[in-house]
């Protein structure tokens, strides 16, 4: 378990340091309870404990109880949580409420873990092509995501407009993840 947590963290660190690149967690020792996908579950197990509060927006209650039981992380409102687990991209109220930190302490901005249908380096049907630029990206990088829309991304851009305030986004699908920290500029087009 201890060594899994270390390996999983290194995947997360690599992902956060290289926005837009797809990364995979290796299969967990314990399966995640549906509808929480593997990657979202691993993010929770790797980073949460009783010192940080989470909110599992729109997941069934059982998911939040599962997270608390396995990590000790208490629940909080979207405005107070350090970690928000979003079941899909329709939860704009949670994204609008999530804390973006203080100018003197921007690290207080929340980490948002958004679960998607699919993530891919190559085009997907009914998806968005997202292009990210910023620290960690050599020039620009495009990846493909289905289950995310313009409304979500526009609101995210809005919330990240006053860098260093902002939200750090981790997109997950199955055991795949892509990180979009607040330092990134995102553009997208429908495919």
């Amino acid at each position, binding site marked *: 378990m201890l060594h899994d947590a270390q390996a999983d963290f290194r995947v997360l660190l690599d992902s956060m340091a290289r926005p837009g690149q797809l990364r995979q967690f290796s299969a967990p020792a314990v399966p995640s309870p549906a509808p929480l996908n593997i990657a979202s579950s691993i993010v929770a197990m790797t980073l949460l404990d009783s010192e940080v509060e989470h909110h599992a927006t729109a997941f069934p209650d059982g998911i939040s109880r599962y997270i608390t039981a396995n990590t000790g992380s208490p629940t909080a409102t979207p405005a107070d949580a350090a970690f928000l687990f979003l079941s899909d991209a329709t939860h704009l109220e949670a994204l609008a409420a999530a804390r973006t930190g203080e100018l003197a302490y921007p*690290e207080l901005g929340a980490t948002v873990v958004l679960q998607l249908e699919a993530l891919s380096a190559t085009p997907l049907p009914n998806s968005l092509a997202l292009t990210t630029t*910023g620290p*960690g990206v050599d020039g620009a990088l495009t990846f493909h995501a289905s289950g995310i829309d313009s409304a979500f991304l526009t609101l995210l851009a809005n919330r990240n407009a006053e860098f260093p305030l902002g939200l*750090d986004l981790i997109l997950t699908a199955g055991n795949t993840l892509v990180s979009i920290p607040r330092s990134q500029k995102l553009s997208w087009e429908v495919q």
Partner: protein
Amino acid sequence: MIENTKFQSAYNFAFLDERTKREIRRKILKAVAVPGYQVPYSSPEMPIARGWGTGGLHITLAIIGREDTLKVIDQGSDASVNACSLRQFIERMTGCATTFDSAAASLIQTRHRIPEEILTEQQILVFQVPQPEILRSVERHENKTRLMHAEADYSKLWVSLYEAYVRYGSLMRGAGYPVRVNGRFMMSPSPIPRWDVPNLSGARCLYLFGAGREKRIYAVPPHTTVEPLEFEDVRFRVEDWHGTLCAYSDQGQAFLDEIYEEDSTRKFVVNDSNFLDKLRGGPRPPQRLFQNPQ
């Protein structure tokens, strides 16, 4: 026979308890998300002294795994006594492999140097930082420097550079040259020489900085713009040995140590111990070199 077990302790893998590791890991991710910004963290006491690399050690121990290959350098050298001490400690607490080869390491902990050899996507360089606050020389109070960073108000730093220029005809900043990261945060690159500063910008590897005593973690992700402060007419310059060659390898284009012999004559030797070994034993490893402006 009765054994006295009262004072015996068993330590967790990588010494730190899992809770502390998790806290440091959360802070590292935030540091990466806001490049150049100093994230406060718990910084528990370690069995080595404050100022001797505790911050670097916290980061290394929070991220290291059994599969890692570790290199530890101090002042560019694998042989420095403190580098040996830290390497032994980490090795003992993790059982990981160690190396002196800059190219073979997956994780390098360093004090005051970036290896000459180009680091790759597969590598993380962890800096030990004595004073993370680049503004400390112009503003002693933490709440005020925080405010200056919050408002991106760096006028005091610019003024101090300008005053040095007026007085001495140069910016007079030696090691720990102030840099601006991603066009936003001013950052101390830790006391690396100016020679290493250009290698912070647009690198392939991840740079993590740990200041244990001051309880701060910060980061420069790969492919991030890092600019040394300079004026249009007074440019940043790296150290210049005016074509002097290393006494052991007959080569230049590397940071040189000035060494005094018994009879007080001096010679210059390549500082990076592994780079020197490679220069003496085979082809010159790939380097990024900065040209001083004319």
